C-alpha cells in the first residue's frame, strides 16, 4: 500500500481510535521496559505520560478544524466554570447585539432594501420648481405632464399620478379606500407586473373606461383572496368599476404604502389645458447614461419654454431621486438611532475587554502551563479569541430574542410613507447580527488574548502568578475607559437635545384649540354641481349644529394638521409676472364659522360672514405667513390677488382678514402662506369642503353615532370616513418623535450605566492588583484619606478627559443630526452642563466605592499578601 493512502487512512481514523492506539503503544512500551528494569523505573524513564500524550495529540492537531472545535470546547468549559462573569458578559452582549439587530432591521427595511420596482435607482420624480416658497418642489399639472412626455429627451417615459377617491360600497359598510389615479404608462415606467390579471392600457386611460387595479392587501382583506376577483365589478363612488388586476404583495408607491386602489387618471381635454391644477406627481425613468444633474438641467429648460407659452410667469422644473422621496425624515432619525445603538455596543465591548483583561491575571498560571507544554503564542491567541467568539455567539443568539420587542416598537417609527412596514429577522438582519457578533468578539477578545499570552512567557510560573502586568496594560485599560466615557457623553448630549426638541413639539402652539375637537371626512363626489354641493354642506352642518353636546361645527377642504397639498400659484395685484414666479400658497375652502369652531385667532380684520355670498368679487382670509411675506409691518386688508389660472376670467380676491398661524401641514411641518376662501365663493376651484370639524362640550367620541344619523338624515347614502379627534392626530404625528426620543434616551442611560460600571471595574481591579503597594504606602505613613484621594482622583481624571472628548464629538454629532430638530436650534450649553453634572456625579460614585475600599485596606494583611 502506498504511503499516501496509508497516511490518508491514518488521518481519517477517528479520534477515539487514535487515542486507543496511542494508549496501546505506550502501554506496550512500558510493559517491555518493566520487564527489563521494573515498573517504577519504567515509568520514570518514560517521563510524564500525560504530557507525552498531549504532545502527541499536538502532532495530530495539524487539522485546523479539529483544533478550532477543541478551542470551542475549551471556551464552553470556561464559561461553565465562571458562570457569574460569563453571565454578565452574555447578558451585556445579548442586549447590545439584540438592539442593534432591531435597529438594523429598521434601517434595512426603510433605507436599504431594494424597492419593488425594476432598476429602482434609475427612477426619479419630477416636480414644479417653487423655490420662492422654501420648498424647492411642488406638485405639477396635467398639461405639464403631457408636454413633458412628448418633448423630453432624458427619460424613457414619464407617468403621472394624482390623488384618487374611492369609497367602496355594496356588501358591508361603505369603506373609504386609499386610492391613487395613475396614467397607463405608470406600470411600465416602474417596470412592475401584476400578480393576477393585467394593468390598464392607454386606450382605457384616455377613454375614461372604469377599470381599477387593486392591492394584494385589499384583495385578501375585503375579497377573501377570491380567485374570481379579476373581472369582478365593484361599486366605487357609487359607480361600477371592473377589477382587472391585482398587484403583488409588498408593492407600493408614493404617497403611502397602503394604497389599495389604482385608477386611470383619464385626463379630460379640459384637464389637459388646466395649468392651475396642481396635484400631480410625476415619476420617470432616466435614459441609460443620463445623470440626475443632466435631467435637472434639461427639464428646467424644457418647462420654462413650454409653460411660458401658456402661463405667466413660466415655471421651472426639478428632478429628484425616488428613493430619497420615499424615506423622508425617517432617514436621519434611523441612522442616528443605529449609531446610538452601535455606540452602546461599543461601550459594552470595551467593558468586556476590561473585564477579560482583569480576569487574564487569574489565568496566568493556566497559560504558563500551556506554554510549558509547547503551545506557541499564536495558538494561545487563537484559543483565547475562540473563547471570546463563543461568548459573542451565545450572546448574539440570546440577543435575537431581545430584538423582537424592540422591532415591534420601531415599527411605529417609520414615516407614514412607509406605513405598514413589517420588520422581521430575515437573512440580512441575521447576517448583520452575525457580523457584529464576530467583530465584537474579536474586539473585546483581542486585548485580553494578546496580553494574556504575552505575560505568560515572561514570568507566569513564578509563584503567585500575578506578574507585573505593567503600566502598559494599565494605560490601555485607562484609555478604554476614556473612550467609553466620551461615547456615553455623546449619547447623553444627543439624547438631551432630542428631548428638548420633543418637549418643544409637544408644547407647540398649533393655532387651534385641540381639546374636544372631533373631525371626520364626508367625501363630496356625489355633489359635482357647485350649488347643490353648497346646499348640502350647509344642510349637514345645520343638522349637526342642532345636536346636544355640539358647541359649533364647520367644514374645510382638508382637516387641519393632516395634509400639505392643495396649494397653487398666485399673483398679487401690482406684482409683475416675474415677481410672482415660483410663488405658491396653500389654499383651503372653509365654511363660515370655521375659525371660531377650531379656535383660531384673528390678528386683524374679520372672519367670513353671511354677507359673503357667491360673487365675482370674492373675499379671502390669509394667514400671518402670507401677510408677512408681502406686507411686512403693514396691513394686507384690502389688497387683491388672483389665483392659478391667469387671464380675464380669474377672480380678484380681496383680503378681509388675517388669521394667526394654523399648522395645517402637521405638528412638525413648516408654516406656509395660506389663503382661505369661503365655500359659497369657491366656484373657481375644485377644492371641496369635505372635512368636518366639530367642537363638542362632551367627549367627542361619544357623539359620533348621533352625528352620523344627523348627516344621514340629510342624505341617506353619504359616506362618512376617518373619524378621529385632533388629539388623536397630534399623538399620531408625535409618535415618531416620541419613539426616537425614548429610544435614544434609553441608549444614553444605558451607555452611562455601562461606562460607570466600566470605571468601577477598572478601579476595583487596580486596587486589588496594587494591594501590596498600598500596604507599603500605608506602612510608610500615608493616611487613609490620601489613599482615597489617589484612587478617587485617578478615576475622576479619566472621567474628565472622557467628558472633554465627548463634548467635542457631540458638537459634531449635533450638527449632523440637525434635521431632527425640526428647524429649531436646541440650546446646547445648558444640555452640556446638565450632562456634565450627571456624569461627574455618577463617576464620583463609581470611583468612591473602590477608592474607599483601598483606603480601608489593613496594611498588615496587604504586606503579607504576595
Amino acid at each position, binding site marked *: 500500500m502506498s504511503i499516501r493512502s496509508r*497516511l490518508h487512512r491514518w488521518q481519517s481514523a477517528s479520534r477515539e481510535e487514535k487515542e486507543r492506539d*496511542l494508549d496501546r*503503544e505506550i502501554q506496550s*512500551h512500558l510493559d517491555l521496559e518493566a520487564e527489563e528494569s521494573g515498573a517504577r523505573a519504567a515509568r520514570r524513564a518514560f517521563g*510524564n505520560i500525560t504530557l507525552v500524550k498531549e*504532545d502527541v495529540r499536538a502532532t495530530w492537531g495539524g487539522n485546523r478544524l479539529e483544533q478550532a472545535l477543541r478551542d470551542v470546547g475549551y471556551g464552553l468549559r470556561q464559561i461553565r466554570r465562571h458562570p457569574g462573569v460569563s453571565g454578565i458578559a452574555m447578558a451585556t452582549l445579548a442586549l447590545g447585539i439584540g438592539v442593534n439587530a432591531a435597529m438594523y432591521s429598521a434601517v434595512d427595511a426603510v433605507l436599504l432594501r431594494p424597492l419593488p420596482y425594476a432598476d429602482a435607482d434609475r427612477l426619479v420624480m419630477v416636480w414644479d420648481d417653487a423655490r420662492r416658497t422654501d420648498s424647492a418642489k411642488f406638485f405639477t399639472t396635467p398639461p405639464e405632464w403631457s408636454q413633458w412626455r412628448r418633448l423630453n429627451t432624458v427619460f424613457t417615459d414619464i407617468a403621472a399620478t394624482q390623488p384618487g377617491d374611492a369609497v367602496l360600497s355594496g356588501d358591508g359598510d361603505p369603506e373609504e379606500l386609499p386610492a391613487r389615479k395613475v396614467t397607463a404608462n405608470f406600470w411600465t415606467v416602474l417596470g412592475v407586473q401584476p400578480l393576477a390579471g393585467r394593468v390598464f392600457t392607454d386606450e382605457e386611460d384616455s377613454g375614461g373606461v372604469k377599470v381599477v387595479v387593486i392591492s394584494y392587501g385589499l384583495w385578501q382583506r375585503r375579497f377573501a383572496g377570491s380567485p374570481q376577483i379579476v373581472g369582478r365589478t365593484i361599486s366605487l363612488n357609487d359607480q361600477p368599476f371592473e377589477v382587472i388586476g391585482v398587484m403583488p404583495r409588498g408593492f407600493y408607491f408614493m404617497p403611502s404604502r397602503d394604497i389599495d386602489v389604482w385608477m386611470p387618471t383619464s385626463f379630460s381635454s379640459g384637464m389637459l389645458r388646466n395649468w392651475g391644477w396642481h396635484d400631480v406627481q410625476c415619476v420617470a425613468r432616466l435614459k441609460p447614461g443620463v445623470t440626475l444633474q443632466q435631467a435637472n438641467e434639461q427639464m428646467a429648460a424644457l418647462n420654462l419654454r413650454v409653460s411660458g407659452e401658456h402661463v405667466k410667469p413660466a415655471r421651472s422644473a426639478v428632478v429628484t431621486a425616488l428613493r430619497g422621496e420615499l424615506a423622508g425624515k425617517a432617514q436621519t432619525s434611523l441612522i442616528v438611532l443605529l449609531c446610538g445603538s452601535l455606540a452602546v455596543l461599543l461601550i459594552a465591548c470595551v467593558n468586556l475587554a476590561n473585564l477579560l483583561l482583569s480576569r487574564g491575571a487569574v489565568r496566568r498560571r493556566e497559560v504558563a502551563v500551556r506554554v510549558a507544554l509547547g503551545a506557541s503564542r499564536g495558538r494561545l491567541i487563537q484559543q483565547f479569541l475562540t473563547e471570546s467568539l463563543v461568548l459573542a455567539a451565545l450572546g448574539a443568539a440570546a440577543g435575537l430574542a431581545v430584538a423582537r420587542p424592540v422591532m415591534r416598537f420601531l415599527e411605529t417609527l417609520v414615516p407614514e410613507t412607509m406605513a405598514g412596514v413589517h420588520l422581521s429577522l430575515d437573512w440580512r438582519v441575521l447576517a448583520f447580527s452575525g457580523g457584529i457578533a464576530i467583530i465584537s468578539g474579536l474586539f473585546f477578545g483581542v486585548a485580553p488574548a494578546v496580553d494574556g499570552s504575552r505575560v505568560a512567557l515572561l514570568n507566569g510560573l513564578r509563584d503567585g502568578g500575578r506578574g507585573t502586568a505593567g503600566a502598559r496594560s494599565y494605560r490601555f485599560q485607562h484609555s478604554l475607559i476614556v473612550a467609553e466615557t466620551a461615547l456615553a457623553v455623546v449619547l447623553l448630549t444627543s439624547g438631551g437635545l432630542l428631548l428638548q426638541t420633543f418637549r418643544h413639539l409637544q408644547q407647540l402652539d398649533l393655532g387651534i384649540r385641540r381639546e374636544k375637537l372631533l373631525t371626520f371626512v364626508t367625501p363630496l363626489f356625489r355633489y359635482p354641481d357647485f350649488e347643490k354641493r353648497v346646499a348640502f354642506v350647509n344642510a349637514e352642518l345645520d343638522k349637526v349644529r342642532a345636536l346636544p353636546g355640539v358647541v359649533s361645527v364647520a367644514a374645510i377642504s382638508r382637516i387641519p394638521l393632516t395634509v400639505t397639498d392643495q396649494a397653487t400659484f398666485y399673483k398679487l395685484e401690482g406684482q409683475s409676472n416675474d415677481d410672482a414666479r415660483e410663488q405658491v400658497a396653500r389654499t383651503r375652502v372653509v365654511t363660515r364659522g370655521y375659525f371660531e369652531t377650531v379656535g383660531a385667532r384673528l390678528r386683524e380684520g374679520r372672519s367670513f360672514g353671511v354677507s359673503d355670498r357667491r360673487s365675482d368679487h370674492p373675499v379671502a382670509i390669509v394667514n400671518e405667513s402670507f401677510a408677512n411675506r408681502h406686507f411686512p409691518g403693514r396691513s394686507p386688508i384690502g389688497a387683491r390677488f388672483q389665483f392659478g389660472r391667469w387671464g380675464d376670467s380669474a377672480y380678484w380676491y380681496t383680503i378681509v382678514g388675517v388669521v394667526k398661524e394654523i399648522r395645517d401641514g402637521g405638528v412638525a411641518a413648516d408654516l406656509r402662506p395660506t389663503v382661505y376662501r369661503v365655500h359659497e365663493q369657491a366656484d373657481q376651484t375644485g377644492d371641496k369642503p369635505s372635512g368636518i370639524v366639530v367642537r363638542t362640550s362632551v367627549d367627542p367620541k361619544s357623539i359620533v353615532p348621533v352625528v352620523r344619523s344627523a348627516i344621514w338624515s340629510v342624505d341617506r347614502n353619504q359616506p362618512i370616513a376617518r373619524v378621529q379627534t385632533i388629539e388623536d392626530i397630534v399623538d399620531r404625528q408625535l409618535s415618531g418623535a416620541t419613539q426616537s426620543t425614548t429610544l435614544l434616551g434609553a441608549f444614553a442611560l444605558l451607555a452611562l450605566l455601562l461606562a460607570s460600571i466600566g470605571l468601577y471595574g477598572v478601579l476595583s481591579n487596580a486596587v486589588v492588583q496594587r494591594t501590596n503597594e498600598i500596604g507599603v504606602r500605608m506602612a510608610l505613613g500615608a493616611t487613609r484619606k490620601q489613599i482615597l484621594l489617589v484612587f478617587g482622583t485617578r478615576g475622576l481624571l479619566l472621567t474628565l478627559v472622557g467628558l472633554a472628548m465627548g463634548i467635542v464629538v457631540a458638537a459634531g454629532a449635533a450638527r449632523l443630526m440637525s434635521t431632527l430638530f425640526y428647524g429649531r436650534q436646541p440650546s446646547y450649553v445648558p444640555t452640556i452642563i446638565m450632562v456634565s453634572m450627571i456624569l461627574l456625579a455618577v463617576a464620583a460614585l463609581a470611583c468612591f466605592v473602590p477608592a474607599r475600599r483601598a483606603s480601608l485596606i489593613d496594611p498588615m494583611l496587604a504586606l503579607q499578601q504576595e
Partner: protein
Amino acid sequence: MARNPDKLDLLRGTLDLLILRTVGAGPAHGHQIAKYIQRSSDEVLQVEHGSLYPALHRLERKGWLSAKWESLDGKREFKYYRLTTAGRKQLAAEESKWKRLVNAIARVTAAAEG
C-alpha cells in the same frame, strides 16, 4: 526530573535524525528505538523515552515514517515504524546537513587550537 549534567540534552532536530537513522537500519518499534539510541551512543545520549513518541508521530505525519501493528513472534503486537521513500530522502538530507555542521565546527575548533 533529575538530570545528569554529563548526559547531553538532545535538540529536537537531532532527535529526528537519530530516529530516522535508527529506523533506516530496519523496522523498529518505539522501545527498540530508544534502546538502540542509548546503546549505540554508549549511554551518552539519554533519550527520555516519552519524548520519542511525539517525535515518532510527527515524523509519521510528515510522511517520512510509516507505522503498522505487527507481531514477529505471533504472540505480542508492537507498532513498527519503517522508513518511507520520502523518509529515505529526508534522512540523506539530514545526514549531509549534519556532516556539514560537524565539519564546520571541527574546522573552527581546530583553527582555535592550532
